[in-house]
């Protein structure tokens, strides 16, 4: 499992697309894969949008995490790539939902980071290897 992480508009998706060029990919934007994967590689991006709407409709952090754990188990034999957006280096949001999202995202990202075998940080298109991988 590979995580591609960085601030907004830093070129994370472009980096993933370039790396997966020529391969069959199932790409999930703001949602999680449910049915059995068709392609060997699965990309999950924009989960912050999904988690925000889950929190807004009263779904607990426990449930959100459980759902992610189940997903990781289900797709453990696939090449799973996460595109995670760092949103937690700004000032404390005024909106209570955004404050909650920040806390939940921070913990969820920590969980995903601990599960990942490879982590790449993208800074304006420049990759930096944070964990595992070949440092490309």
């Amino acid at each position, binding site marked *: 499992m590979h995580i591609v992480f960085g*601030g907004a508009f830093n070129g994370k998706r472009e980096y993933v697309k370039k790396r997966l060029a020529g391969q069959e990919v199932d790409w999930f934007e703001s949602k999680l894969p449910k049915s059995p994967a068709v392609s060997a590689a699965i990309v999950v991006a924009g989960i912050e949008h999904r988690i925000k709407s889950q929190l807004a409709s009263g779904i607990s952090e426990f449930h959100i995490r459980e759902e992610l754990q189940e997903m990781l188990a289900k797709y453990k034999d696939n090449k799973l790539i996460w595109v995670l957006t760092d949103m937690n*280096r*700004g000032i404390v949001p005024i909106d209570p939902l955004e404050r909650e999202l920040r806390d939940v995202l921070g913990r969820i990202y920590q969980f995903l980071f601990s599960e990942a075998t490879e982590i790449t940080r993208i800074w*304006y*298109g420049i990759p930096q290897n944070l964990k595992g991988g070949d440092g490309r």
Partner: protein
Amino acid sequence: MANGQLIFVSGGVRSGKSAWAERRIRESAGSRKVYLASGQAHDTEMVKRINRHQEDRDGQGWVTIEQPLHLEKALPYIERGDAVLWDCATTWLANELYEGWEKGAPCADQPGCMETKWAALQNTIQNLQSRTKLLVIVSNEVLDDFIRDEMYQRWLGRIHCWIASQAGEAYEMENGMAQKRK
């Protein structure tokens, strides 16, 4: 003539990026030290702040060019072999994107407006690079937060990615420590 060196440095507020950038210029072989400033004073505190910085630099032999908008207008004042510090991309973008807001018609609301300015900026940066010994571009980290102004942040990401791709060296400033990313 071969292109001069381009260095991109970005960091948080008070991370020491400007001091680091100034040092790179001082230590370069540029014939003049030129400070290309995009900041605009909107109140007396800002005027004092800008004046104080300018006086500090003047004492150290810097030439200051204030160019809040339309960076290409500074080109005639740049001499071959200069070392130029442009401070900064974030301020420039805010100035350009919201130019005309006081008349109720900011660039951000006009289709194609920012695209034109962006093309002009790319040309200007390449032009600067072709005549300077060293060009250091300073910017800020504001994309690791909730999206507050999508158009501004999207443009800034695009600009930063392009500058980083053009630069020979790119650094992320962490509390006075320059982390080399490229």
